[in-house]
């Protein structure tokens, strides 16, 4: 059986950065293999033609293809191995990766370490249970984005968008520029899940109204979508009778959340986090299966690709270390948990014997909008870090960086919590 020191599943921003960092850490480029199921590297960035990527990494605003292009160029310049059109079918505890490709056929390759970088996919209509018929004209926002930006097709002319996540907002502008009429954006929650600047430059610029606390309750049309019923919802997000309104449209875009794509991870028996939908990892990004690491949107959904890149560097470095040193002896693992307003904490566990320095950070999301709160990190109930935050919202990933006090407490302690006060 063929052997590669590191196999990376997915050639998007996470996979590319993990490969580059593994090479920087001394793994020869020919000992690294990126397996990408699409026909080219770059992942979803290829269809994100709008600007706004790279402010943290490069200090400038790049488009998605430009951001991906810089990493693709570097992977090529370093001579790192990659195979496109390659679909990974399974990974095993022995780190055997099975995949198919039109040029290579069915292959099994043994890996010294594996990095999971499969990204995420969109929630679909099925996950929402909207009543009505099943006509053509209903797309997830990302699918419509691919049709418009990659294939050059405009999926419809009169558009309603459900969900005010960033992809939905970006598509409202994109379809308007391409000649469609975007009638409105409906958001179930009383606040938008997208960035404020996207509301300004994607909706306000084109006079597209945003209806907060509204949802789609009915879908009409037989062959093609003819209209949707929209209703206002109450505080418990239930439609309020009497507020229904019929809107004639031929297209409904859904921008209602992203789900880490973890079928491979699940089948391999790796422990997942119920809230993030991604693997449980320690601070080296190692999953419950030794030598298997995860990073990017397959681990938890990020707001900014820059943070995906940084997380992937960490995973790539850890994978390189694993191939050199082998599995570290099982040390004390401290579980991390979110409390009072903190929905999840990643990493889900901290290895007390592993690397813990002031670059180590805990990432978390809150469950509601909060103002003027303290983020408190405690070890065994004793507060070690307290930071004031003026504004916290579910759409914004937050971080707590460890300091020396926290590190000493973690090395001696048994459980870590992050909470709001």
């Amino acid at each position, binding site marked *: 059986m063929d052997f590669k020191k590191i196999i990376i599943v997915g050639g998007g921003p996470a996979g590319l950065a993990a490969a580059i960092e593994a090479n920087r850490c001394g793994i020869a480029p020919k000992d690294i293999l990126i397996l990408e199921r699409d026909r080219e590297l770059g992942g979803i960035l290829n269809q994100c*033609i709008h600007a706004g990527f790279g402010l943290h990494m490069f200090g400038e605003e790049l488009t998605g293809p430009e951001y991906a292009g810089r990493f693709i160029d570097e992977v090529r310049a370093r001579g790192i191995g990659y195979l496109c059109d390659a679909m990974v079918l399974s990974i095993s505890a022995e780190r055997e990766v099975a995949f198919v490709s039109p040029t290579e056929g069915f292959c099994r390759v043994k890996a010294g370490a594996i990095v999971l970088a499969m990204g995420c996919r969109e929630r679909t209509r099925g996950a929402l249970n909207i009543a009505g018929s099943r006509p053509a004209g209903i797309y997830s926002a990302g699918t419509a984005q691919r049709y418009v930006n*990659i294939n050059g097709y405009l999926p419809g002319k009169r558009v309603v968008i459900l969900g005010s996540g960033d992809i939905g907002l970006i598509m409202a502008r994109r379809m308007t520029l391409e000649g469609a009429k975007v009638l409105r954006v409906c958001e179930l929650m009383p606040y938008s899940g997208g960035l404020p600047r996207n509301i300004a430059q994607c909706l306000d610029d084109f006079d597209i109204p945003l209806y907060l606390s509204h949802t789609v309750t009915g879908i009409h049309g037989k062959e093609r979508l003819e209209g949707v019923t929209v209703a206002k919802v109450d505080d418990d997000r239930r439609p309020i009778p009497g507020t229904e309104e019929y809107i004639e449209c031929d297209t409904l875009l859904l921008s209602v959340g992203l789900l880490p794509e973890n079928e491979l991870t699940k089948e391999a028996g790796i422990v997942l986090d119920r809230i993030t939908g991604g693997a449980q990892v320690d601070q080296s990004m190692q999953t419950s299966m030794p030598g298997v690491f995860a990073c990017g949107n397959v681990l938890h959904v990020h707001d900014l690709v820059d943070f995906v890149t940084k997380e992937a560097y960490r995973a790539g470095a850890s994978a390189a270390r694993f191939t050199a040193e082998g599995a570290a002896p099982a040390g004390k693992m401290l579980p991390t948990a979110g409390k009072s307003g903190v929905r999840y904490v990643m990493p889900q566990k901290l290895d007390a014997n592993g690397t813990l320095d002031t670059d180590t950070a805990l990432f978390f999301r809150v469950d509601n909008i909060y103002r003027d709160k303290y983020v408190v990190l405690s070890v065994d109930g004793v507060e070690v870090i307290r930071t004031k935050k003026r504004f916290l919202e579910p759409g914004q990933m937050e971080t707590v960086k460890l300091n020396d006090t926290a590190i000493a407490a973690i090395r001696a302690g048994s459980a870590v919590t992050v909470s709001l006060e």
Partner: protein
Amino acid sequence: MSTVIRKTCIVCPLGCHLEAELADDGQILLVRGNTCRRGESYMRDELTDPRRTLTTTVRLVGAENDAYLPVKTDGTIPKGRLFEAMKVLSGITVTAPVVRGDVICEDFLGEGVNLVAGKTVEASSCG
């Protein structure tokens, strides 16, 4: 009497809530709410000459897979001319190979702003 105009800053993902105080004659008296200098100049431009970077695609021929090329303006253009720009660009076809950063159309609106390629695409090997 002065009027207050509110806008969300689009310069970076922070999205600061900007406020400008205008005198009766429309003169900008004060900008606040910004956390950097770019925010203030954005608000001043927004009130006098709002401008945007345009990102879109143009037709591409001669490539293996790609039928469209992502492009962007290398500076901002007046917000009111976005649709005009889209119309101009709908008539453009680029031939592969193309390198990220290549100028596709020089000064295509007479605003001193060029259209540049956002992606490197090689020519098809079968010609």
